[in-house]
């Protein structure tokens, strides 16, 4: 299908998400403001006030209430969206677990931000990492375009009949939420064709039922196992929805990550979110120098695409995983996933090796990741200077360095 009217616009990431919400036209949006997510809900509220969407917006008293209202509305069969960041996600986390266990297709955008303390309103991925075990699908995006596209795709994914799970779409706080960027918004009719009508498989309004029952030890384990199964279904559904989206948008999303210059790469980086843009520029620069470097930009963090990661990294010499968050006392959460994927799969992949790995922590509390720091990571990888069993910090002041 050809796209007749492409609408390129100058939009912040938050405005792009609000455009996606307008086209989805959720039945209910319970909201509570928090920086840097707030412009998503204020932009969308203006759209509703102007009659551009028919959503019932509920101004709740906290994020805990926002997610609770989302659970109630979704149980009634409504399409529900909300957004949060940082401490807001921390406060709603209790109910996030419940939303996932009830298998409710709630859409949530997260303007990724550092967690307190010290209090900090700027970007890192600590909030999303905190929620990684809540049972939600988690998607990271690089820029306004991806934030828009994946918000639309997340709605379909959440409602997919083999998934039926809440989906969290991250966009980097300020870097993506507040920066103006060129993004192409689908014409409304195409977007609405893609989204389709929602037929809830279950509604409290029409059916006698107990939602959120108590489980004794005789059933809790089985219900949790079923939840794992639902997450495992997501990888296939994710790619199916990417193909459906490509038909409407001509944007070639394929698979759980973007493999940039990976075909003959000897060294590679793995990164999520807006830092991928800077990293690609560095890859281009080094490629011009004849160096065989590449980049994996991960979209799908939960469920983790372990087989695909093992396939793509099982043939390179060395890999640096960039984490914008830290599991204190251990490594970065993304690094733990990549090492686990390679350890468990690499020996089963023909002719594959186990690459040398290193974990680089960067950008906590909104610190910029500069091109020279990414270049240094490639230099260090190629020279074999990095070890798998210790942490490295990009852009951190340390005693004795040049300042």
């Amino acid at each position: 299908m050809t796209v007749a009217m492409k609408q390129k616009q100058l939009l912040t990431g938050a405005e792009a998400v609000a455009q996606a919400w307008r086209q989805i036209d959720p039945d209910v949006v319970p909201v509570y403001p928090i920086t840097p997510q707030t412009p998503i809900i204020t932009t969308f509220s203006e759209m509703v006030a102007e009659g551009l969407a028919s959503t019932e917006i509920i101004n709740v008293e906290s994020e805990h209430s926002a997610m609770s209202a989302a659970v109630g509305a979704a149980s009634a069969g409504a399409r529900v969206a909300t957004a949060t960041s940082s401490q807001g996600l921390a406060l709603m986390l209790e109910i996030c677990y419940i939303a996932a266990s009830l298998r409710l297709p709630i859409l949530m955008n997260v303007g990724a931000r550092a967690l307190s303390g010290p209090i900090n309103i700027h970007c890192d991925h600590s909030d999303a990492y905190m929620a990684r075990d809540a049972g939600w699908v988690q998607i990271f995006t690089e820029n306004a375009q991806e934030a828009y596209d994946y918000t639309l795709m997340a709605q379909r994914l959440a409602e997919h009949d083999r998934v039926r799970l809440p989906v969290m779409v991250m966009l980097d706080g300020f870097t993506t939420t507040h920066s103006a960027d060129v993004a192409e918004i689908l014409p409304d009719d195409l977007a609405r064709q893609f989204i389709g009508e929602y037929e809830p498989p279950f509604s409290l309004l029409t059916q006698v039922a107990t939602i959120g029952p108590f489980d004794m030890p005789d059933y809790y384990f089985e219900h949790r196992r079923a939840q794992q199964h639902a997450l495992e279904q997501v990888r296939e559904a994710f790619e199916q929805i990417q193909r459906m989206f490509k038909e409407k948008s001509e944007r070639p999303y394929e698979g759980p990550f973007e493999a940039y210059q990976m075909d003959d790469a000897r060294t590679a980086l793995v990164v999520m979110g807006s830092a991928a843009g800077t990293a690609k520029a560095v890859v281009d620069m080094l490629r011009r120098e004849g160096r065989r470097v590449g980049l994996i930009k991960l979209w799908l963090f939960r469920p983790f695409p372990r087989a695909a990661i093992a396939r793509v990294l099982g043939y390179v010499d060395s890999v640096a995983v960039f984490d914008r968050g830290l599991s204190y006392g251990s490594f970065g959460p993304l690094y733990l996933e990549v090492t686990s994927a390679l350890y468990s799969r690499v020996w089963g992949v023909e002719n594959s090796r186990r690459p040398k790995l290193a974990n680089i922590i960067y950008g906590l509390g909104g610190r910029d990741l500069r091109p020279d720091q990414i270049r240094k990571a490639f230099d260090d990888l190629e020279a074999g200077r990095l070890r798998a069993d210790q942490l490295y910090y990009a852009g951190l002041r340390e005693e004795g360095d040049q300042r």
Partner: protein
Amino acid sequence: MMAKGKLKAWEELEVGAVVLEGGSTQAILTGGWRTGKKPIVDAQKCVNCLLCWIHCPEPAIVTEKAQMRGYDYAHCKGCGICAEACPSGAISMVPEERLVPKRGWIE
């Protein structure tokens, strides 16, 4: 959810642990959770407002023709909410070992 008959495998469960039949709490004998105290009701003081019935989180208040008639101890988990909610002081929590008339109904 609580076992009735053969336990189901995880693949056989309703999505989202939803319970699709009504009255499922009848099957769960929460009386075994009681620790230390149980409620009794003084029939002379009971004004039959049924606030205990409204507040009770389990099907533990026995009624006959919309009249309070005491407790189903197999379901009463001893939370004491009925005693707090009772406006006429008819309900009191007494030691578990005290012998009381059937259903804790004191004529």
